[in-house]
C-alpha cells in the first residue's frame, strides 16, 4: 500500500512543553508551602523550578507506547523460555546462586525504589521532576514485577527461590540492600534523589546490571537476560535524571554544595557495600565468568565514575570521600565476602562451594597481587577440612556493622591481614563498624542508625532467643534443601538428572 505518512505536527521541544510543563498549575486554595511541605527542612534552596531540564523530553504518551513495546518483547521471551525448558540451557545450576541472591536482595530494592519515587514525585513542586519521578516510579514497579515473574520459572524446579520476601525482611546477607533502601526512603526528598537517582543509578547501577546481564548471557539464562535488558532500557533515562538532579540542585544555590557533597560521600559508601554482593557473584558464582570484579570496577567505576566527577568538579563537587578506600578494597572484597558466605552457608538460601583448582587459577590470574598471597591458602585449608570429613562451618556468627549491616569481613585499607575494627559510643551504647566510611555515616546521624535492625543480634532476642532451628523456620529456610554446599544438593542432583533426560534418550 502506498499511504502517505502524516508529518508529525509538533517537534520534540514543543510537544514536551505542552504535554509536561503545561500540565502544572498555580494553586489557589492553598499556599505552595502547604502543598509541598517537605521542600525546606533539608536545607536545600531552590529558586526556580522552571530551570529544570529533561534531556530526553519524554512525554507520557510516548512513555506508554515504548513501555508497552518493552513488555511485549519481554513476555515473548519469557513464554519461550518456559515452553522450551529454558532452565536446562544453563551452563550449570551453580549459576542459580547468583539469581537467588538477586531475587532476595535486589528485586525488593526495585520495589522500594518504586515507593520512593512515587513519594518524591508528589513532594517536588516542579512539573518536570514530577513527571520524571512518576515515570521512574512506574518503571521500578515494572522491574520488581518482571524480575519476580521471570525467576518464578526457576522456582518451579529449584530450591532457594520460594521465600524471597521473608528473606528480604529477615535473613542476614540481604539486609545490606534492605537497609540501603530503607535509609533512602526515610530521608527527605532531595536526599532520596541524590541517594537513588544520582549515587545509585548514575554511579553504581552499571556495576550491578551490566555485568550481571552479561553474566546471564554467558551462562545461558535467557530469562534473566531479558528482564535485565528490559529493566536496563529504563536505566539510561534514570541515570540521565540522576545527573540532571544534581546539576539542577547545584546550579540553584551555592549553599547546596556542602549538603550535596555530604550525601554523595554517604551514598557512595553505602552503595559500595551493597556491591559487595555483586563482587562475589562475578568472581565466584558464575560458572562461566564475564570479567572479574576488578575489571568491571576499572571500566564502570574508575573510568566512568572518574569522568563524571571530573565533569562535576566545575560545581565544586569532589569525588566521594570513600573513593580511595574503595579502590584499595577492590582486589580483596569478593574473596573476603565469599569466604564468609561459604562458612555461614548453613544460613544462606543459596548454595556456595569451594572453588575448584581451575577457578582458583582464574582468580590468581585476575588478582595477581592478592589471591595467591592471601586467599588461596585459606581456600586450600577449607578444602582440606572438607576432605577430612569436617567441613568448615563457622557457628560463631558474625559481628555486623551498625551502618551497612554486613558481617565485618573487610580488612584495614592498608593491611589486608587485619580485620577493620571501628567503634563508637553514643548515649552510653557501644556501636561497631566495618570501616571508616560506615562509622562516619553513623556519626553524622546517630539517632537514625541506633535503630538499625541487625539480623544477627536479632537472632538472640525475641522471638528466636538464639535457637538456630527456630531461626531457620522464621526466615523460611528449609535446612538441607535451600542452604549449604552445592556439592550433594538437591539442585545439583536435579539439574544433572533433568539435563541427562534432555540430552539423551534414556
Amino acid at each position, binding site marked *: 500500500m502506498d499511504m502517505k*505518512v502524516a508529518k508529525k505536527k509538533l*517537534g*520534540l*521541544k514543543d510537544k514536551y512543553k505542552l504535554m509536561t510543563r503545561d500540565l502544572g498549575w498555580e494553586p489557589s486554595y492553598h499556599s505552595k508551602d502547604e502543598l509541598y511541605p517537605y521542600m525546606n527542612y533539608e536545607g536545600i534552596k531552590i529558586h526556580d523550578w522552571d530551570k529544570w531540564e529533561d*534531556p*530526553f*523530553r*519524554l512525554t507520557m504518551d*510516548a512513555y506508554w507506547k*515504548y513501555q508497552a*513495546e*518493552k513488555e511485549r*518483547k519481554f513476555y515473548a521471551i519469557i513464554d519461550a523460555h518456559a515452553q522450551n525448558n529454558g532452565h536446562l540451557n544453563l551452563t550449570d545450576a551453580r549459576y542459580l546462586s547468583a539469581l537467588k541472591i538477586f531475587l532476595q536482595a535486589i528485586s525488593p530494592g526495585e520495589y522500594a525504589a518504586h515507593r520512593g519515587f512515587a513519594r518524591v514525585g508528589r513532594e517536588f513542586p516542579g512539573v518536570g521532576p514530577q513527571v520524571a519521578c512518576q515515570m521512574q516510579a512506574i518503571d521500578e514497579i515494572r522491574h520488581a514485577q518482571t524480575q519476580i515473574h521471570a525467576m518464578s520459572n526457576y522456582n518451579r524446579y529449584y530450591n532457594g527461590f520460594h521465600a524471597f520476601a521473608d528473606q528480604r525482611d529477615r535473613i542476614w546477607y540481604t539486609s545490606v540492600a534492605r537497609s540501603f533502601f530503607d535509609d533512602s526512603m526515610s530521608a527527605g526528598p532531595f536526599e532520596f534523589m541524590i541517594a537513588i537517582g544520582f549515587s545509585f543509578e548514575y554511579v553504581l*547501577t*552499571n556495576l550491578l*546490571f*551490566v555485568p550481571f*546481564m*552479561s553474566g546471564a*548471557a*554467558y551462562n545461558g539464562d535467557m530469562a534473566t*537476560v531479558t528482564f535485565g*535488558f528490559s529493566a*536496563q*532500557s529504563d*536505566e*539510561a*533515562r534514570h*541515570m*540521565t535524571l540522576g*545527573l540532571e538532579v544534581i546539576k539542577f540542585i547545584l546550579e540553584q544555590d551555592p549553599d547546596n554544595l556542602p549538603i550535596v557533597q555530604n550525601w554523595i560521600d554517604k551514598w557512595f559508601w553505602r552503595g559500595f557495600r551493597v556491591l559487595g554482593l555483586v563482587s562475589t557473584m562475578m568472581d565466584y558464582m558464575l560458572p562461566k565468568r*564475564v570479567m572479574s570484579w576488578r575489571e568491571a570496577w576499572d571500566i564502570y567505576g574508575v*573510568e*566512568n565514575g*572518574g*569522568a*563524571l566527577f*571530573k*565533569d562535576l568538579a*566545575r560545581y565544586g563537587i569532589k569525588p566521594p570521600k570513600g573513593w580511595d578506600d574503595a579502590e584499595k578494597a577492590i582486589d580483596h572484597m569478593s574473596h573476603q565476602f565469599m569466604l564468609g558466605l561459604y562458612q555461614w552457608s548453613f544460613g544462606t538460601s543459596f548454595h556456595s562451594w569451594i572453588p575448584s583448582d581451575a577457578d582458583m587459577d582464574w582468580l590468581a590470574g585476575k588478582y595477581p597481587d592478592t589471591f595467591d598471597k592471601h586467599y588461596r591458602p585459606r581456600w586450600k585449608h577449607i578444602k582440606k577440612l572438607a576432605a577430612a570429613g569436617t567441613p568448615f562451618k563457622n557457628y560463631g556468627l558474625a559481628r555486623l556493622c551498625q551502618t551497612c549491616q554486613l558481617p565485618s569481613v573487610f580488612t584495614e585499607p592498608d593491611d589486608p591481614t587485619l580485620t577493620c575494627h571501628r567503634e563508637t559510643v553514643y548515649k552510653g551504647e557501644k556501636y561497631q563498624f566495618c570501616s571508616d566510611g560506615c562509622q562516619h555515616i553513623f556519626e553524622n546521624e546517630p539517632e537514625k542508625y541506633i535503630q538499625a535492625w541487625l539480623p544477627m543480634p536479632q537472632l538472640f532476642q525475641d522471638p528466636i532467643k538464639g535457637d538456630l532451628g527456630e531461626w531457620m523456620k522464621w526466615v523460611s529456610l528449609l535446612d538441607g534443601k535451600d542452604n549449604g554446599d552445592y556439592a550433594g544438593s538437591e539442585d545439583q542432583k536435579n539439574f544433572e538428572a533433568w539435563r541427562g533426560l534432555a540430552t539423551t534418550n534414556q
Partner: protein
Amino acid sequence: MSTVFIALQANEETRPIIEAIEIDNPQAIVHRQPAMVKIDAQGRLVIRRATIEEQLGRDFDLQEIHINLISLTGHVVEDDETLTLSWND
C-alpha cells in the same frame, strides 16, 4: 578528554542503529559483547536520525532508541534530529 559510551542490546533492530553510529562517529570504538554492544568515544558521541533512517530504510523516531538502550554516560542533549552525549572537560 573523558570517554562517553552508549550500550545497546544486540539484535536486529539495533544493527542499523549501530552502523549509523559508526558512520557518524569514526573515532568510536565498538565492543561486541554477549547480547550487547558497547560503543565508546572520546569526549563526544552523536547519533543522527537521518543516518539511522538511511541504514534502516524507513522513518525513525530517535526516541525509539529507548526500547533497546542499555546504558549511557555523559550529558544528554536530544532534539528531533540528534542525540548527543558529551562531557564538559
